[in-house]
């Protein structure tokens, strides 16, 4: 490992930050503005890719600005960036996917004619800059700096819709992530106090191994809790489903890749480069973390089963999948580490595909709810095929990216003696099939008028007081009885799930006053619903169809969710949506497949091998 002094890490971070200025300046000219975004994305990707050969050869690129903050006594904390294998893994991933997402954003934002697009693209560039900064940070303090900046830069994206739901989600997001930031700050201070430094050292900071174990445990707990907020470890996950109110590209890149993985990445740095696997093992902190992760894997998968809003289901799937990575790190076994780290890119490609598909469906048909997607394979064949491939990968079926990482994870967990954890992984695989397969199945093999019932979504927990699946018109008394059975108000999707078009009705109530035509259209929309509406507008849970409320307000004509009257029209692959959206979807899906078929040809696996070798001394 040789350190190479270079400005490239700095440039990689700064390119997208600098791009904010021209993006803001060309606010009146969308094409020019998006050119800046693309230019910045390609430059960021190019710069990080240019460092791959060197890092694979064992070099580390370092940009050092000298002392930033004092440490204890003679120690000090430098403001420095470094591109080592682990950092480059994340930076490369974030910048590569930003290129794809930028294209997709153009199609998505223009397709919906969203407001404040300039702010959106500027904040997006800022978020990527901060995420790359997290990746390339040289020590815990610099990592914290970018971690907090990432929170600030993402906040405008979460609140983008400017609806009450979006603002509430934004507040929750800030409260959770800044709360996590406070824990990280406290943990960092203790580490600096114990060791006089915060520099990442492969295999852990030596002084930490000899310091007071109680203090070291406290620091570890604080750091992992703080990073765990963004990594959506339960019970600190609940900001993530709420943040799905953001535009889909944001959910895709930031809330499945950059932001959440910055939390996971933080945990990875803490485990591998601050404490080191051995010290973590000596402190006995690996097992509790693994238990939390395994719990999150299983419980989040179960909750995902009951989400009818596609993006919320994907969000809970993200919560679950992120914990795969954390579990891999917590088991402290070389192969589990490799599996966990490899799952960072694998999950990124697959989940990005899934989110892109959800966004494409939203833009083209304004449908967000799974219960309204029966037969949508006719309308959007390419999208749903990509969705199917990515779902297979999430479940860990071979030949798609998720298989390779899960394989390593399983072997690692068995080697670590954690049969329970291997069991959790397998159960989660089954649950993945259970919550993804129905979407794919109904898209291709059911039609909008002949849809099977979905007992998991429609029925209350425990199966008592099951409502009649066809709903009927006696809706006034039915929800009251049904909501009594809801055990978990936090997952308040219940009334909504059963009444998927509440939002249309609620929203149209305001439109009705001003436009008789709109009212008429609403009634049409309601009457041709396969799953009936009911009148439970005063239900205890607000509907969560954020995107809908927002773009209904923006768009001149009134959209409604679900299939149009007369069913989905059949479209060819080339005309189902714009290439701005289909292109990124297919690219991301291809990436997922390539990672699954030839993992050793892609830089990620080799970077992971270097990281594991550096941290544990084991060559895979």
């Amino acid at each position, binding site marked *: 490992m040789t350190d190479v002094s270079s400005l490239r890490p700095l440039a990689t971070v700064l390119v997208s930050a600098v791009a904010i200025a021209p993006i803001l300046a060309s606010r009146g000219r969308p094409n020019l503005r998006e050119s800046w975004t693309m230019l910045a994305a390609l430059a960021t990707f190019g710069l990080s890719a240019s460092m791959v050969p060197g890092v694979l050869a064992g070099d580390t690129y370092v940009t050092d600005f000298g*002392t*930033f903050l*004092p440490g204890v006594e003679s120690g000090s904390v430098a*403001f420095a960036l470094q591109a080592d294998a682990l950092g480059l893994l994340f930076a490369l991933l974030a910048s590569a996917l930003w290129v794809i997402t930028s294209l997709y954003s153009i199609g998505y934002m223009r397709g919906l004619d969203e407001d404040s697009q300039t702010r959106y693209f500027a904040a997006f560039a800022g978020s990527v800059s901060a995420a790359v900064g997290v990746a390339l940070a040289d020590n815990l303090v610099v990592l914290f700096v970018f971690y907090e900046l990432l929170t*600030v830069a993402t906040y405008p994206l979460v*609140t983008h819709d400017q609806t009450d739901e979006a603002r509430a989600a*934004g507040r929750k997001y800030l409260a959770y992530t*800044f709360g996590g*930031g406070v824990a990280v700050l*406290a943990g960092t201070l203790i580490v600096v106090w114990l060791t006089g430094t915060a520099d990442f050292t492969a295999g852990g900071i030596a002084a930490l191994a000899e310091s007071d174990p109680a203090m070291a445990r406290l620091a570890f707990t604080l750091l992992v809790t703080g990073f765990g907020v963004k990594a959506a470890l339960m019970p600190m996950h609940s900001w993530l489903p709420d943040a799905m109110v953001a535009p889909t590209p944001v959910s895709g890149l930031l809330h499945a890749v950059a932001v959440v993985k910055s939390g996971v990445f933080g945990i990875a740095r803490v485990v591998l480069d601050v404490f080191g696997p051995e010290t973590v093992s000596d402190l006995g902190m690996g097992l509790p973390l693994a238990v939390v992760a395994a719990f999150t894997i299983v419980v989040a998968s179960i909750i995902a089963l009951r989400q009818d809003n596609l993006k919320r289901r994907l969000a809970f799937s993200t919560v679950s999948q992120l914990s795969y990575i954390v579990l891999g790190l917590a088991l402290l076994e070389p192969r589990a580490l490799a599996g966990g780290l490899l799952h960072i890119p694998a999950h990124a490609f697959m989940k990005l595909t899934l989110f892109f598909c959800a966004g494409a469906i939203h833009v083209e048909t304004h449908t967000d709810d799974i219960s309204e997607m029966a037969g949508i394979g006719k309308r959007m064949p390419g999208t749903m095929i990509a969705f199917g491939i990515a779902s297979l990968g999430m479940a860990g079926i071979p030949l798609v990216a998720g298989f390779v990482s899960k394989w390593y994870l399983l072997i690692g967990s068995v080697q670590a003696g954690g049969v329970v954890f291997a069991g959790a992984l397998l159960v989660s695989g089954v649950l993945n099939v259970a919550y993804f397969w129905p979407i794919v199945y109904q898209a291709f093999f059911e039609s909008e008028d002949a849809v099977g019932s979905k007992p998991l979504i429609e029925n209350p927990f425990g199966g008592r007081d099951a409502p009649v699946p066809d709903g009927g018109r006696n809706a006034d008394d039915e929800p009251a009885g049904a909501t009594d059975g809801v055990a978990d108000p936090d997952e308040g999707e219940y009334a909504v799930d059963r009444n998927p078009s509440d939002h249309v009705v609620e929203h149209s109530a305001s439109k009705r006053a001003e436009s008789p035509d709109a009212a008429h259209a609403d009634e049409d929309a309601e009457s041709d619903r396969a799953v009936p509406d009911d009148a439970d507008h005063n239900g205890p849970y607000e509907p969560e169809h954020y995107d809908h409320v927002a773009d209904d307000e923006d768009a001149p004509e009134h959209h409604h969710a679900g299939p149009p009257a007369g069913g989905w029209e059949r479209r060819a692959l080339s005309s189902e949506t714009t290439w701005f959206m289909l292109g990124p979807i297919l690219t991301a899906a291809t990436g997922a497949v390539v990672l699954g078929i030839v993992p050793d040809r892609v830089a990620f696996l080799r970077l992971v091998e270097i990281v594991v070798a550096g941290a544990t001394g084991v060559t895979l």
Partner: protein
Amino acid sequence: MTDLVPIAVALPIVASVVALLAGLVRSRSGWYVALVGSVAQVALTAELARRVVADGAIRYVVGNFSVPYGIELVIDGLSATMIVLVAVTALGVLAYARRAGPRSNPFYGAYLLLVGGLTGMSITGDLFNLYVFLEITGLATYVLVGSEEGGRSAVAALRYLLVGTVGASLFLLGIGYAYVATGTLNMADLAAVIGEDVGYTATLIRASFAFVVVGLFVKVAVFPLHTWQPEAYASAPDSVSALISALVSTVSAYALIRVIYTVFTVDFLEANPLAADLLAAAAAVSVVAGSVLAVAQSEVKRMLAYSSVAQFGLVVAAASLANETAMIGAFVHLVGHAMMKGSLFLAAGVVATATGARTVDEYDGLGERLPVGAGALAVLALAMVGVPPTLGFVGKWYIALGAVETGSWALLAVIVSSTLLTLAYFARLIERIFFREYAAPAGETGVAPDDADVPGDADVVADGNGLPADGNGVSTDDGDAPLREDVSFGMYAVVVVAALLAVTLGAAVFEYAQFVQPTVTRLLS
């Protein structure tokens, strides 16, 4: 050439008199006198600071009396920081005040007197002299707070005067005890006599400490002695709010640190652990209570005022730790807070001048209407929250590291979670500015989205003063000003430059820490 030292105090005071006299010849000449005075003051203090960097602390005895009897002026690293801060902030606010007013010559007279008083407080080495400068500062502040049109500011100023005088009198009483016990008033001499002859646990010394600290707590506005502060900041003209929020409490906090550590010394705190504990407790309560009260405010300037209560809690917390890192942090935070809070008040003033918005509710959709002002306000707010790598974060890092070093875990918890407390009130503002639509008040038509010249009538009613007699909102003393003045380039420039500095100066803190390190070491030895 140490003769420059007394000039640093004399110059603003002389300029103050000149401003008053010039008003007899030509009204509205005050700003120019103040400009010349402030520029000269900046140059002078910069030169003094340069000498301190080069040669170490400067001591000057007024009128050639021998030291324990004559008044001594001392400029070390910390007092140099303060006098430069005072001079630069005053100049910055002046750039803002040119258009925003108040414009009368007496105003600028009081303005310069305040600068002189604060400079004197910073460099004096004599306890009674500190009292005199404290009162000069107080007098000038009362006058400045009352310089807004209408009764609200007069009531606030009178209240400030009564409470402030009690505070200063308690401080004087504390000095009296110290004098009775030691027979001297020179700070260095006092420290020596207390240490050698009187002893740290003598009742007189303890009583003196208590009175001095409580008296200065009033001036610093530590909870629950802050009652004068929110109304004074909220009702004063925007330029004055900025100036006094940036400087008066700051220099008072400096005086507190100076008196505790130079006069009573660390040994006193060691001999009386209860005193240190009470300081820390007061600080922690101030942080929490100030933040909670800030969240409850509907008027933006009052919110900013309560925020100061919380932030000075942090400074006092740092001071109570008696740790070098924390002490450097206290000064970084003093300077950082002065810059950020002063600019936040100026930014609030820009917003009020351009749109008439003074309450949190009225800030809806400000990002669309006033992008530059709102952007600067947001950046300053985030810096205040302590988002890294801003100045606010760096100061907090030093203080928190000091708390870790001394093992003060409870205080550490308060310090790091103050981020969340600060976020609670600023996030509310930011959300309204950028993520809510602007709903035009009834009677107001056709608001240009990003234009400053919103029609005035509807807004003036909503103006913070809210008095029928005060219909002109931001009118000047002369009363012939237009209804709504445009925001001048100078007003924007000050706010934007301050926002940029708040973000970038964090990088320079380590250098600054090297510079004050020897002074702090001596202070705490």
